[in-house]
């Protein structure tokens, strides 16, 4: 299946003010709707080889930044030509739950030309990364492994996921789990 999709216009200044004023649930609903308009309730993961991360633009954020500041930075990013293939919010320091979810929604709504909004399991943890799928993210970023040892001892903080674990997280967020393949094609995970 080929990955293309529809695009809306990036929000102007007045629309950005309106976005910043919205409550968590309204932002989440709108961001999820924007994601679904492009991806039809699909959520992705990918096995990346070395160097393939370069297509991902990292959007750094800190706790306490205002929505207005973030929206201004996102507006600048939206002007980038060609649009990035994927954007991944990257926390500086410890991310807070609600602040992070709000940022994901703002990213999705501010960057309509960017197909993929990625939640980084290695930085956010599997719980928060999965929640981000409800706020506009369409992809989980984690090393995908064939088998994973129990999360004990030295392995306690290993963020790697098996294909099945990634699919369980995506389905748990109410999306159809798909693996992204070469050339931006994908296949649904049925197991």
């Amino acid at each position, binding site marked *: 299946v080929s990955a293309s999709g529809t695009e809306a216009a990036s929000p102007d200044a007045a629309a950005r003010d309106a976005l910043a004023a919205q409550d968590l649930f309204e932002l989440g609903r709108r961001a999820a709707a924007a994601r679904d308009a492009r991806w039809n309730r699909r959520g992705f993961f990918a096995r990346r080889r070395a160097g393939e991360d370069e297509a991902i633009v990292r959007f750094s954020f800190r706790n306490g930044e205002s929505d207005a500041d973030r929206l201004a930075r996102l507006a600048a990013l939206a002007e980038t030509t060609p649009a990035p293939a994927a954007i991944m919010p990257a926390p500086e320091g410890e991310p807070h*739950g*609600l602040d992070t979810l709000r940022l994901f929604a703002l990213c999705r709504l501010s960057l309509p030309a960017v197909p993929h909004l990625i939640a980084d399991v290695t930085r956010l943890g599997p*719980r928060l990364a999965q929640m981000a799928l409800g706020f506009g993210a369409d992809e989980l970023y984690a090393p995908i492994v064939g088998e994973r040892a*129990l999360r004990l001892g030295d392995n*306690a903080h290993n963020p790697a996921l098996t294909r099945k674990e990634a699919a369980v997280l995506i389905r*748990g967020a*109410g999306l159809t789990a798909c693996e992204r393949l070469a050339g931006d094609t994908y296949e649904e995970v049925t197991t």
Partner: protein
Amino acid sequence: VTSPSINAIRDKVRAGEPLSLEDGVALYEHPNPLEVGALANEVRERLHGDRTFFNRNLHINATNVCEASCMFCSFARLQPGDPGAYTMSLEEAWGKLRARVDAGDPITEIHIVNGLHPGLAFDYYTDLLSGLKRIQPSIHLKAFTAVEIFYFAKKFGMPIADVLARLRAAGLDSLPGGGAEIFAARVRKKICDDKCTGDEWLEVHRVAHQMGLRSNCTMLYGHIETVEERVDHMLRLRALQDETGGFQTFIPLAFHPDNNALMKLPGPTGVEDLRTYAVARLVLNNIPHIKAYWIMLGVKTAQTALWFGADDLDGTVQEEKIYHMAGAETPQAMSPAEIVRLIRNAGRSPVERDTLYNVVAEGAALATERPFRRAVRRSLEVMS
């Protein structure tokens, strides 16, 4: 049977009608967790507005020696002398409070939960309580789960009411909500067959409420139980609350799979956590508070739960052992300033409470901001 729609459930919630088993299951199965969360938040804000409660407390787990072999437990050791087994002397346990008092920490509550130790006399427990009250008479002692109370009744040959009366005379003020797990007999048989049944757990709380004691209630979710069994658990709590009105807070406890016999299970996901909080808020319409126990949920999820039905973050919690032995990666304590900051960052208004939800401090009277301690910061970085 067609499952109820979210619109029909919303109408019932807004009309103040209690939800049914089918409603609860439908909320669990609704494809959009945000819709369920938004409805739970509506109820949460109707009851409490933005107010979000916490307290200053100390946990004492006086012994981890336990006759029961619950499959989800990483804390218990079967016998004294087993590797990792410990039993505090009374002086040791009292010393935990003395240390807090000497440090000028104005804690208002001690939360005491222990293993079912076969070798301790009943006097150990009464002396434990009375000694703590001697050190700080105003301290609220929230002690002994219903499982412990039931064990005392059997072991020492006393009716439940007599056990509670003697503990109360020694200083017991209320009961914690632990040990409820999942009430369904099918689940209890598999994961905790050798402790009290669901009905026995409820009976202990019924007797406590009839004596004028308040208590909390819990549900351990995310292991082998079904969604129907979760909702059934909530409905049984709601029925007892209709009868007695003695529950203050419901605390959904996320199963932690490390270091126990169920370690091959994945444990609940973040979305499942939030949905469980939301469903609890909607089904338990007669229990005033829903607590996001940050020790077990993780700080990020607990903070997010404040918008999915929860209105309480528990407390500062000194020396938590039970969930850290099960792999919880949270810090073992947060300062009041850290909790206040967490609540404010969630867009909520922090309220320091005592165990019975009397306001201790609110607004400008609350602890001022302080940077996160290094230990807290480190654990936040690795927390899932």
